[in-house]
Structure formats: C-alpha cells, structure tokens
C-alpha cells in the first residue's frame, strides 16, 4: 500500500460559469496512466450521467454503466441516507453484477455513515474484478456541500466540480483507517490531499489468495 500526500502548489484554476469550479486532480492522472496500460476495461460510474465523462472515458473503455446512486435513493425513498438494510436492498437491485474494473464513486461516501459504508463496500466487492480500482473523493473539512457534487473530467489533470445546492452540512472527515475498515475488501493504493480540502483516494481490490497454511486445520 502506498500513501502519498501531496500539497503540490499549483496555480488556482479560475472558476467557470454556473457554479462550476475546475480543480486540479492528481489521482485522476494516476488512473489515466493505469487505464492506458489496461485498455478495454469496464467502468461503473456511481454519479450522475455526464457527457464529458463519457467522452473522456470512451478513449479507454467501450463499456460504461451509470448508476447515479444518490439520485436513485432520493427518487425512491425521498431522502438520503437511508438505513443500511434499505441501502443494501437498493444496491442489490441497482448495481449490475459487472465485474467492473474501475468504479467512480466520486464524493458519495461522504454522505453515508460507517455502517452504510460497509454496505457499499460489500456491494463494490460484489461487482468488481479482482484487480479493480475505486476512485473516491473524501472531504476533510468540517463543512461540505449538502448533497453530492457532480463531477466532469475536463482532462487527465482537471476535474470540474459542480454543486446543485449552496447549503452546507457537517462533513464526516473520514480517515484512511475508517475507510479501510468499512471497505474491507479494498485497500488504499494512493491518496492525495488537495489544497481545497478534498482527499483523493484510489483504492484497490484486495483479494486474499488462499495459501497452503490457510487450508490447514489448526
């Protein structure tokens, strides 16, 4: 497991129109490098549909599934988060079996408690391949937007953040140990703490390889 923290100084990216703000991304650059080495992968996007993301990802994959989990939960139950058992049932029906090689979780994990994260982790493990990666953005500040942002990949080093609400709510500020505990079948491959308080994580599937010792009766 490699953990890299970077506060590499970069010139601020000017905000765009309609509340869209462009931020540099380091994890995406890593992911793109990985994608270039492994063409033909399948991608699961848990965020909202984005033409820009589709255009970008189509360079590397011909198979993309868009799930828009947060909006699905809101439409179905009228609120988010929902109780863990409800979330479990919802994800059982909403996520196709895959297996997917890359999951774009974006900032979704910030909006669920640890019990719900365990449910999400279980389902991510169910629908991903043994070498899958998960891209997640964790808010490290005390306040965060009231609901998940939408993200659009501008290029391999720039992500455009767009919020649909100006309201704020307390952020859970998950740290790596909490993520590792909740997403038990994934480990942190790389993380980057960015200047605007977002910590980008690339998590990798950790599949236990059975050994002779494991098979022995103790």
């Amino acid at each position, binding site marked *: 497991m490699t953990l890299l923290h970077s506060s590499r100084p970069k010139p601020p990216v000017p905000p765009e129109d309609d509340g869209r703000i462009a931020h540099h991304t380091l994890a995406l650059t890593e992911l793109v490098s990985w994608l270039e080495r492994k063409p*033909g*992968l399948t991608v699961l996007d848990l965020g909202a549909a984005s033409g820009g993301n589709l255009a970008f990802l*189509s360079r590397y994959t011909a198979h993309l*599934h*868009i799930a828009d989990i947060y909006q699905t939960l809101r439409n179905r139950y009228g609120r988010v988060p929902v109780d863990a058992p409800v979330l479990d049932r919802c994800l059982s029906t909403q996520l196709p*079996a895959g297996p997917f*090689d890359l999951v774009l979780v974006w900032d979704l994990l910030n909006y669920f408690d640890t019990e719900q994260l365990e449910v999400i982790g279980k389902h991510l493990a169910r629908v991903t391949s043994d070498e899958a990666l998960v891209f997640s953005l964790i808010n490290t500040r005390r306040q965060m937007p009231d609901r998940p942002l939408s993200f659009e990949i501008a290029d391999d080093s720039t992500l455009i953040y767009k919020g649909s609400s100006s309201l704020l709510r307390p952020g859970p500020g998950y740290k790596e140990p909490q993520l590792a505990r909740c997403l038990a079948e994934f480990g942190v491959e790389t993380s980057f703490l960015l200047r605007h308080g977002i910590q980008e994580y690339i998590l990798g599937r950790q599949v236990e390889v059975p050994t002779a010792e494991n098979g022995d009766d103790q």
Partner: protein
Amino acid sequence: MNRDRTGSSMGCVIGESVTIRGELHGGEDVVVDGRLEGTVKLEANHVTVGKSGRVKADIYGDSIEVEGEVRGNLHGTTQVVIQPSGHVKGNIFCPRVVLEKGCQFKGSIDMETETKEPARPVSSDKPHAPAPAEKPTEQKDSDSISAVTS
C-alpha cells in the same frame, strides 16, 4: 403537426394525443410525440422521441435522438443522442453516444456494437475474463460531448 427535425425528408409523426402499443416498423423516419409501448424497429431510419414523447420500448434505429422520456434499450447503428431534456432509463448499444449536458441517463453504455447483450442481471460472483482487445478510439477536443469508438 409535421416537422422536419432531421433536415431530410419528412417522416411520420406520432402526435401527442396518440398512444400506440405493439411493434412499430417501417422504412421512414419517425418522430414520437405521443405514447408508445412495445418495440420500435426502424434500423435504417432516424427515430426521434420528442419532448412530449413517452416511450416504454426497445428502440432500434439507424440514429436515435431522445428529447422526451424513454424506458427501454436504445440500439443505434450510427448514433444515439440524449438531448438536455431527455430522460432515459435503459441501456444504450451504439458506437457513438452523445449525452448532452442536463440530460438524465441511467443504465449501461456499450459502444462495441457487435455485442448486443445488455448488462448482466444482478447475481453473485465474478471471475473476470481477461480484458478484450483494445478498441480504437477517437476523441474530439471541442466542447462537443460525444463519444466515438469506431
């Protein structure tokens, strides 16, 4: 109400007050402004689901444009476009897919046109076959948000 949305010859328009249940097939472009349930098979033609169109069907077309609502799979030969007002819940099978800003889409996008299988249903496990050979890709650097893989 006749319109020429494609810039080509006038096609058939299913008006807002019309409801069709069953299979729709033929040899001319179609605009669906009404309700349609069943299957649309116009593989050689342009299919438009207008803003007031409500379609619960799998659509097969040469090109498909959605401004209204579709629940079903879209099988396009050349291009599928979901306009900003479009709302699609289903899978798209087409080598070129365009999601315009503001559209709502939920489902799978398969740009390998040889494969006509939708996403597999939810089930248990996995092991994953090796990734298929790389698809040739092409990407425009303009503001266009289209995806091209052939």
